[in-house]
């Protein structure tokens, strides 16, 4: 769809076409930079996913996120390209949705997270998908993530529901566990693979 790694940079600020430097950095087919935003109900483990991915840690009693927090992480793919994820982890409570556009505007990737033990959070995930379809970048890459997969005995959202919903909406689906680190790296690698690459000529 002609999206390039530089999309977030270009459309995020009010700077218009000023980001030559950035484009120089990201239009490089070998080194992508990507703005990624995590959305989802409160307490589904957004911050934990990021912390696991970026620092390799898991804290069962992590802090409430107020507003949003930022972390970045670079991964190398097998084809020797690197992808630097600039991750905005947003607050989960409903009313913070008022501030969410600030963070998902211009994002190239949105990761919508729900908790497999909470149908409510699955509903909320669907709300976010709709919101993104309405107000996000038209060529945004979306991933639907069912977190807390380690709590399978308490599962209330069947994996099939997630798969079907993701398929219907052209999303990529995965179940993860930030606690056991299951599928966390896979999630981000898969996203990286799906990123539209800038053509080498550009």
């Amino acid at each position, binding site marked *: 769809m002609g999206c390039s790694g530089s999309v*977030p940079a270009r459309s995020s*600020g009010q700077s218009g076409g000023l980001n030559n430097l950035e484009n120089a950095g990201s239009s490089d087919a070998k080194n992508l930079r990507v703005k990624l935003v995590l959305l989802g109900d409160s307490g589904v483990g957004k911050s934990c996913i990021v912390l696991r991915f970026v620092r390799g840690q898991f804290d069962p009693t992590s802090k*409430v996120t107020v*507003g949003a927090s930022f972390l970045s992480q670079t991964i190398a793919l097998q084809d020797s390209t690197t992808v630097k994820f600039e991750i905005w982890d947003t607050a989960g409570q409903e009313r913070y949705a008022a501030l969410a556009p600030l963070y998902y505007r211009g994002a190239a990737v949105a990761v919508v997270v729900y908790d497999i033990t909470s149908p409510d959070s699955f509903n909320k995930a669907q709300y976010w998908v709709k919101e993104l379809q309405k107000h996000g970048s038209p060529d945004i890459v979306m991933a639907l993530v069912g977190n807390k997969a380690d709590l399978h005995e308490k599962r209330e959202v069947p994996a099939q529901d997630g798969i079907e919903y993701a398929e219907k909406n052209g999303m990529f689906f995965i179940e993860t566990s930030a606690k056991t680190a299951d599928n966390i790296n896979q999630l981000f690698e898969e996203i990286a693979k799906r990123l539209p690459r800038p053509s080498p000529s550009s």
Partner: protein
Amino acid sequence: MSRNRFNFLHNSELELRRDAYGFALRPQHIQGYREYAGIYKEEEEERTQKWKNFLENQELAQLRSTKEKYKETLQANSTEFEEETVRDKNSEGNKAEASELKRTTFSEKGSEGNEAEASELKDETVSVSGSQVDEAQDTRWKADLSERSGRSNVPEGTRETVPERGREGEKAEVTELKEETLSERGKKGDDSSRKSDSDGSKELSPQKEQLSEETKTEKVQPWAQIRPSLGTIEHMMNFRVKKRKVMKGEQITKSGDHLPSIDEARSSGGESDEDIKEKVCVTVTSYGSVNGLDDKGSQEDEVSPEPYFPWKEELESLVHGGVPKDLRGELWQAFVGVKARRTERYYQDLLAQEINADESKEHDNSFGVPRKWKKQIEKDIPRTFPAHPALNEDGRDSLRRLLLAYALHNPSVGYCQAMNFFAGLLLLLMPEENAFWTFVGIIDDYFDGYYTEEMIEAQVDQLVFEELIRERFPKLVHHLDYLGVQVTWISGPWFLSIFVNILPWESVLRVWDVLLYEGNRVMLFRTALALMELYGPALVTTKDAGDAITLLQSLAGSTFDSSQLVFTACMGYLTVTEARLQELREKHRPAVLLVVEERSKGGRVWKDPNGLATKLYSFKHDPELLIEENKGTEGSDDALADGDLSYKEPAANLDNMLSGLSVNSELEGRDLQEQVVWLKVELCSLLEEKRSAVLRAEELETALMEMVKQDNRRQLSARIEQLEQEVAELQQSLADKREQESAMIQVLMKVEQEQRITEDARRNAEQDARAQRYAVNVLEEKYEKAMASVAQMEKRAVMAESMLEATLQYESGQAKAVSSPRAVHNQSSVDSPKRRIGLFGLAWRDRNKGKPSNLEGSSDRKSTN
């Protein structure tokens, strides 16, 4: 329990990974913290000393005034006389004046700025017992002077029993009064003051319920007064709270909110009805006194915004320097004006209501805290300062109660993430109910509109901050723009969390010190600007968005030099004032409202159901309060005699009083409860209509603005067109001129070229001439040569002639001898040509006589050749 918690903060034997407040340190900050730990300690000692001196001076001054007062009381019991003396004393100035001001306005004898304040504003009965109160007061002062640290203020003497009694009363009330009928309310008013009564009601209550009560509310820490030495500060801040309330009331009146209707109802009731019940009369009179007080207050406002506190500047500089740990909890309460805000038993009522709602298992919105907030609170409690030693099970229970009570208190906010941290922080510093009222002050006043469902003010503030930062740090913003970073991505969380979890704790507390002292959000802006000032230079060196954000986050997180931060903020940004911010907020608010409006139109299903329901709910909740209010004043005589605290600060409950009045005056003899609810529903729908009308008006206004703008735009574009035309014309003429010029130049060039050509021609001609001259010379030379050769030839010819003549003569001599005719004939035929040559040669010789030498030379040469 509070003492335990408090002590914990003082415990120096803390884990390595926790700071002096028991908060976990991030691993990358441990080093930084260690470096500053020593500095913090020194600073703490220094400021403890400074504050001690300051407060001691305050106390001495106050003690003096109290003693004088005591004497006066002994001298005369008449209020009028006392008022006169008080007025006399006003001229003395100093701290005493500040306290007396209040005395004058309240026209009562209780001493101010401490426990006795709660029993102020009473009538003659109190005056009689006043001396006793003062006496108790006096001893208390002394006690307090000797015992300065710790919570010494729920201590010895008659006061000891007061909170306890209050609690008993409250327990009784909870169990006994679910219906909240008037008569029962009346009893409650007495309960708080008469121990026997409260005992009685306690006995009435069923054991089972009481048990459940105890398990749930027993743990609630009693309300604790702040130490009297801070009374003057508290008094100053209380004044601010009252003033703000008055202002708010005025604003509401102006903006046409729901209060005016009540206001009208009140005035009509007060004026026309003569047969109002006694109860109503009481309300009216008490309202009158409140009104009178506020009138006085506002009159004073006109003269000078606040009464004169000579030590205010000193206090301000002390606050900028930081508040000592020991005093922080109480000073914060004083800053927020907790005493002026507090309503007796309000907190306990809210809790009881919540518990009842819980027990009745009716989780509908109309009773108890709405489920979604409850769920959210439950989720967030373990995630609030996780693993902080003080937030054990008890601590979490307190946190839960506080947040639930607040959600009931203000349903327009309910619960918002971030509030959990504030409540947690306050609970670390003060008893639960005190924390509740401080919390109420912060969220309802300081951050009004911030944490509501739409978070409008939070969004407005971000726009304001962005404008400020663009104005202050154009280079930095330009760089961030260039990187594609929006400042508000980072500053948004700063503001919403009031820097909790953003800055190191020492810095957070220092910022809060100033923020709470100032009573508005100015410090929020100043601190954020100071951070940008401190870290802007580093940010400018970053090369991509991710690096810039990461750097700023980590730098902010390591701002251990809290003094530098606070001073940069307070001194560097003096022009960032509340007035300026308000102006900017007004400017940016319409844009935010527009977006919010559009979003809600866009079908946010889960937002709408709250509107009316919560409002209705809150109104249902209100009547209890205001009825209690009325009763409280009615039963005040006894309460006062006992020095109890059942009396509520008048201004604090102005609103409630207003509504109470309207209810009473309009609905005499009817079922009050029902009517109140009905009225409120009516009001509610009116409010809703009004709000939508207001919204519509705003919409129209924006549309109008848009139109005006477009209109302007049209004019502007016309003007631009005109200008453009002119410019084009000018350009045209300029071009013409240029053309002319170039033509001229061309002409000139042609002329020049011609000139050059002619010159060339001349030069050629000259050359030609020279060549010709040369040719002439050559020719002349040739000619001369030729002439020379001619002369030679002539000579030869002459020679030949002479030779011929000689030959001829010789031949003729021979011929004469031979004399043959033929011979003669031959001679004549040869002779004729020779003669001709001879003639010709002679002629040439004559002409060249001028150059004989030449001729001679050349002939010589010829001859030699």
